[in-house]
């Protein structure tokens, strides 16, 4: 047998264990989700049958679906730009000499390694009416008794603040890595030219950090769709779905209402959104190569 032929055999043998698991838990379920979304919910009396796009019609008429989708959009808009601004500020602050620099950097990064469940547990107490920390402080000024997580207008902002706290330090490290690759001569030159720090940041640093910002942004958007753990502790998507997010709604549909076919339909929407982001990433990463 030729060596060339053995190459194909070895290649596939090495790959087989991984590819079997990948097919079983990524490709097969992706296809099965799409198929399931075309079938009706089966009951003891009426078995599941092909219904075409009926589930999608139900979804489009479902006000909760639209609520959840717009919540996801607001959640992303609320968390990502602020996290990025804070991450850049943190990176700039710890990138120069500073007494106790490693402690400061540690303080910024620590929330990243905490599980979202633990974070939610800690923050839940801040938001609890009357006895919570925020109300205690507000109580000093004579305002208080506010139910931050119980009011549809403040519940999403409350969760956004918590998420920013959790994520800013994580994004900081990517900016730190990028800053370390920027030659210090640039800042020297800018200073010699008499430009202010703000001008240097706006015209030199920020454009140079653009690839990092792109990378962080795409990751942040993905995270905003994938991470819903905190809802289990803080709000369960309530009050009245004011803080419900798409993945949490999928979970509810499948494991609380036992409507796996509707859950599959919702999952198809999520898959579509992720595919869209994959395309965007592809496009922007191309740009990034040109930039270099």
């Amino acid at each position, binding site marked *: 047998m030729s060596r060339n032929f053995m*190459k*194909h055999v*070895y*290649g*596939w043998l*090495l*790959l087989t*264990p*991984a*590819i079997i*698991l*990948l*097919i079983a*838990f*990524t490709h*097969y*379920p*992706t296809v*099965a*989700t799409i198929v*399931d979304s075309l079938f009706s919910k089966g009951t003891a009396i009426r078995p599941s049958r092909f219904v075409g796009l009926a589930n999608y019609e139900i979804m489009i008429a479902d006000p909760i679906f639209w609520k959840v989708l717009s919540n996801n959009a607001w959640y992303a808009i609320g968390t990502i730009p602020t996290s990025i601004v804070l991450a850049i*500020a943190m990176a700039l*602050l710890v990138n*120069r000499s*500073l007494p*106790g620099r490693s402690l*400061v950097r*540690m*303080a*910024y*990064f*620590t*929330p*990243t*390694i*905490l*599980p979202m*469940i633990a974070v939610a*547990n*800690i923050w839940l*107490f*801040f938001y609890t009416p009357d006895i919570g*920390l925020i109300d205690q402080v507000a109580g000093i000024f004579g305002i208080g008794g506010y139910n931050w997580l119980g009011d549809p207008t403040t519940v999403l902002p409350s969760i956004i603040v918590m998420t920013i706290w959790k994520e800013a*330090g994580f994004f900081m*490290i*990517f900016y730190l*890595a990028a800053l370390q690759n920027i030659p210090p001569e640039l800042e020297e030159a800018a200073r010699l030219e008499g430009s202010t720090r703000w001008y240097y940041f706006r015209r030199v640093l920020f454009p140079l950090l653009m690839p990092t910002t792109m990378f962080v942004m795409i990751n942040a958007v993905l995270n905003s769709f994938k991470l*819903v*753990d905190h809802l*289990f*502790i803080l709000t369960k998507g309530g009050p009245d779905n004011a803080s419900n997010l798409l*993945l949490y709604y*999928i*979970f509810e549909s*499948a*494991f609380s209402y036992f409507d796996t076919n509707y859950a*599959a339909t919702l*999952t198809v929407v999520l*898959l579509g959104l992720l*595919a869209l982001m994959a395309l965007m990433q592809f496009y922007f990463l191309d740009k990034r190569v040109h930039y270099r």
Partner: protein
Amino acid sequence: MKTNRFIPRDFQGVLDAGAAWFLALLWIAPLAYAFWAAFHPGEYAVHFDIFAPLTLANFREALSQAPFLRYAFNTFVLVSTILTAQLVLCTLAAYAFARYRFFGSDIAFALVLVQLMITPEILIVENYGTLARFELIDTILGIGLPYMASAFGIFLLRQAFKSIPKELEEAARLEGCGVFGVLWRVYVPLARPTYLAYGLVSISHHWNNFLWPLVVTNSVETRPLTVGLGIFGAPESGVDWSIISAATLMSVAPLLIAFLLFQRQFVQSFMHAGIK
């Protein structure tokens, strides 16, 4: 001229340091607060007093109300099972992609990359069905299985293997090494930094993972820490705040301590893993 320049810059430096420290204090405050609540009696949870008595009663109480040690053991088994399987499967697959141009390798690689975007937690509904068919619901193996072939790991290791000069492999072959010998003696040792980075990222991800373990488990024998904590801390369970703080700290302690000890490695690993 020197003095002229340095005075304002120094002042700027003080301002910067002040801002950095202020932000750092703000950032660590929630965690510091959890420490405060956990180590003091319940009545001091919102009442700050330097002379408040320290106590471990909250930890004892949390341990008596829920089997956190068992949960910690489950998490440990889960994380090490996943990591071991990932290291083996990803090494083999990455080696295939890095050094063999076999029939269909491009398509196979594209199929692997799909998982970077569509991670298993999104497919909870179908994956739950698959596990049910194999009777793996409520097993630690069941929680781990969807994560074992990690596209991220394959991708990272492939990059690392590709940067290793081919001459080293040829030399090893002349010495009589087979496929696995070359892999074990040349590629694996030279890719150690990548293994470390991937290992730390994988451990912290699975230590903290919640949604999929929640779906799969329903008994004390399999539940990892996050799920145990999630059930424990649910508002309707009506547990005292100080005790929840103690339970929260116990759940994050192993990872937090590891992070504090190996801070540099953690930060560099996350950086390394993100940039590739």
